[in-house]
């Protein structure tokens, strides 16, 4: 019970945190590009766009940062047995994240926000790039830590049977990390560009500020197309890596109960979960699963039943099959929505090519609503990867059921879970109110560089 509650809390807070993270990473990068354009061509519309999307960025960063605090504290608060057991390895990338990435991101965010009229143009531009780089570095360290839970490397078991770090480079060359990290960065760029596209589409449909928002719409489509193409490739590659190191995860995602060779891909099915292993309805595509999971036309995939027998043999009795329903549908949600986004990006690119992007009401209307899809895909991705790791908290080393804090009672967790949910609802509501308000409010008239730098300190930009 306590363990389940701790899991619910961690899942809730992580999924929530990751609503804001990809927006931050993606938008910081795009704002940096807009500001670079302004730096190079000196056209005021790019400065206005950078400030406009910068405001949306800040609204999200605020919630992203504070919900990240919760994540860091939660390991010790809720998962003390885990922290005690793996801190030697797992703690290092987290501490590095703070030192090498989060300091960078936070300090230069302050400099960027308040430095518009105080710093030289080039230095100020460097600040937003350092924010963008800091946020990407931050994700790198977190993913290195997370990937270690999926596929532990670079450690030896000491005399107490605890993992001890013996190769830091192994953590950062872990194949699960390399592909997983690229996957997350691309997902963030997809998210950022779809947010930018949706806001731009809204203005273009209303025929407001068309001269400005055609630029940001173009930028978002130009970023989105190559990124989504790469993402479909990288996501597939990550699936192959996971088939190798966490076969249960992928077998469950395919609801593949028995060994197969060649393997058909189930495009849609009803049933086939835990209690009814034979689906009642299924649409299959021959050979596709073999290709996706192994890269070979006739590749073999191990079934859940065979894996279960193997794991029992290796790790003792227990259930080693993750929840098939969650695995199967999170995989499909991601893949299908990703494909739809690819179509949207192709459509957008074609319209751009014809110079008709800002006039296509259909495209603009769909783009506005497409902003929901990256959040669904991101959540599905984490469900797939974390649920697919179960029953392990660290694959093969420690089970989730043994990882929670012995001294924390279920009453404690009920209190914190309810508190977090209430706080997160309030923060989410405030964030949404501001996002809609600022996204629709339009751009400030650019007043130019009144005040200017130097001299006596004026109120550093009335941000407060």
């Amino acid at each position, binding site marked *: 019970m306590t363990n389940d509650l701790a899991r619910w809390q961690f899942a809730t807070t992580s999924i929530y945190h990751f609503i804001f993270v990809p927006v931050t990473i993606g938008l910081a990068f795009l704002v940096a590009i807009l500001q670079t354009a302004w730096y190079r061509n000196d056209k005021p519309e790019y400065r206005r766009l950078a400030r406009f999307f910068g405001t949306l960025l800040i609204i999200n960063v605020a919630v992203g940062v504070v919900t990240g605090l919760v994540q860091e504290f939660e390991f010790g608060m809720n998962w003390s047995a885990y*922290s*005690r057991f793996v801190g030697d390895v797992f703690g290092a990338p987290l501490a590095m994240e703070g030192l090498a990435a989060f300091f960078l991101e936070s300090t*230069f965010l302050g400099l960027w926000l308040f430095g518009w009229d105080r710093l030289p143009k080039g230095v100020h531009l460097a600040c937003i790039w350092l924010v963008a780089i800091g946020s990407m570095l931050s994700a790198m360290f977190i993913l290195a830590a997370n990937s270690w839970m999926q596929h532990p490397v670079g450690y030896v078991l000491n005399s107490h049977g605890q993992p001890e770090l013996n190769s830091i480079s192994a953590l950062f060359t872990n194949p699960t990390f390399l592909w997983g990290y690229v996957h997350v960065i691309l997902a963030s760029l997809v998210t950022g560009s779809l947010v930018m596209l949706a806001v731009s589409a809204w203005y273009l449909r209303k025929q407001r500020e068309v001269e400005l928002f055609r630029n940001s719409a173009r930028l978002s489509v130009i970023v989105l197309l190559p990124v989504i193409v790469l993402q479909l490739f990288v996501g597939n590659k990550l699936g192959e890596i996971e088939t190798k190191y966490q076969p249960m995860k992928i077998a469950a995602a395919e609801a593949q109960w028995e060994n197969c060779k060649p393997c058909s891909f189930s495009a849609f099915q009803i049933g086939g979960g835990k209690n009814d292993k034979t689906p009642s309805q299924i649409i299959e595509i021959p050979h596709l699963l073999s290709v996706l999971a192994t890269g070979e036309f006739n590749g073999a995939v191990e079934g859940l039943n065979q894996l279960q027998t193997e794991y029992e043999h290796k790790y003792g009795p227990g259930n080693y099959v993750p929840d098939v329903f969650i695995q199967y549908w999170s995989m499909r949600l991601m893949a299908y929505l990703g494909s739809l986004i690819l179509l949207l990006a192709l459509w957008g690119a074609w319209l751009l090519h014809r110079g008709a992007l800002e006039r296509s009401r259909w495209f603009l209307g769909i783009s506005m609503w497409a902003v929901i899809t990256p959040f669904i895909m991101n959540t599905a991705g984490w469900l797939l990867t974390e649920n697919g790791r179960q029953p392990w908290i660290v694959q093969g080393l420690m089970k989730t059921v043994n990882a929670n804090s012995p001294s924390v009672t279920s009453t404690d967790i009920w209190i914190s879970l309810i508190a977090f949910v209430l706080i997160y609802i309030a923060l989410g509501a405030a964030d949404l109110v501001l996002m809609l308000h600022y996204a629709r409010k339009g751009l400030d008239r650019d007043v130019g560089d009144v005040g200017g730098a130097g001299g006596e300190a*004026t*109120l550093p930009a009335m941000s407060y």
Partner: protein
Amino acid sequence: MLHLDTLWFVILAILWVGFFVLEGFDFGVGALHMLVGKTEAERRVAVSTIGPWWDGNEVWLIVAGAGTFAAFPAWYATWFSALYLALLLVLAGLMARGVALEYITKRDDERWRRAWRWALTIGSLLVPLLLGVGLGDLLNGLPINSSHEFTGNFADLLTGYGLWTGVTLLGLCLLHGATFLKLRTSGAVRERAVALARPLGWAAIALVVGFVIWTRIVAGGNDVPEPVEILAIIAVIFAARLTATDHDGWAFTSSAIAIAASVGSIFIQLYPNVMVSSTNAAYNLTVHNAASGPYALKVMTIVTVIFFPIVLIYQGWSFHVFRGRLKEPAAEPEAPGAVAPAAPQA
């Protein structure tokens, strides 16, 4: 030769000291901003004094937490799980004030602003108080069994010494915030900060003296205060007295030293323990039995030696860029367009 586990204890102590010195004035400003600012414009000025910096300052806490996880996993595990409900409140406070600082002026709506101003105020009061309790409890001792698990409940966290430490650090943060506001503002805001600094100064002196005496009792044995404890008392007296003068910089420096010496004294007293067990001294967590292996510590040390100086340089530069006293707000309290262009549309 200095052992790496001891070195990491020192690094973590420095991070906690740095956090309270830097974020300490942010807490103070957050807690006092509605008192030093009567009009909306004045309150904006007060909060603007920490605007570019508070976010970077808060990272000191994050690195202290993550550094504890990496260097002393057992300490992190026992401490954070023991403080469960207290840390929940800390997180609630940090979330409330972190978001408030970004959101307060983002809507022109009196109720919106009032709600976030209170979130900022309460969050800024709650966090240093509770973190102080958590630090004091390390030295005071908590019920911890032979497998390093906390065996008490929330009430056991509220030890006399822990609470006194919490109130002392809160008092010092308020004084530190007042000396900071005195340093960075002018006109009515500065005058009110000076007026507040007087009672805050007396309170802080009383708290620090009590804290030093109580630390002597908790630490046991030696009745003679350590040099760092004497420094804390002298510095807080200086800070309180200098607020009445025009030596704004020295007053602020003194309150910074007072806070640093007070936080530092806890760690000096604690060593070589990291967390005392009130159940049995044999169950104490120490720098030796709670530390990570030598390889992990070596890696972390190298990373710190490379990155920490760089962090200090760019954080220092950020302080340099936004140095100087803020002007009094214009007579028009609500004239967003009248001032310099907003950091992305304030």
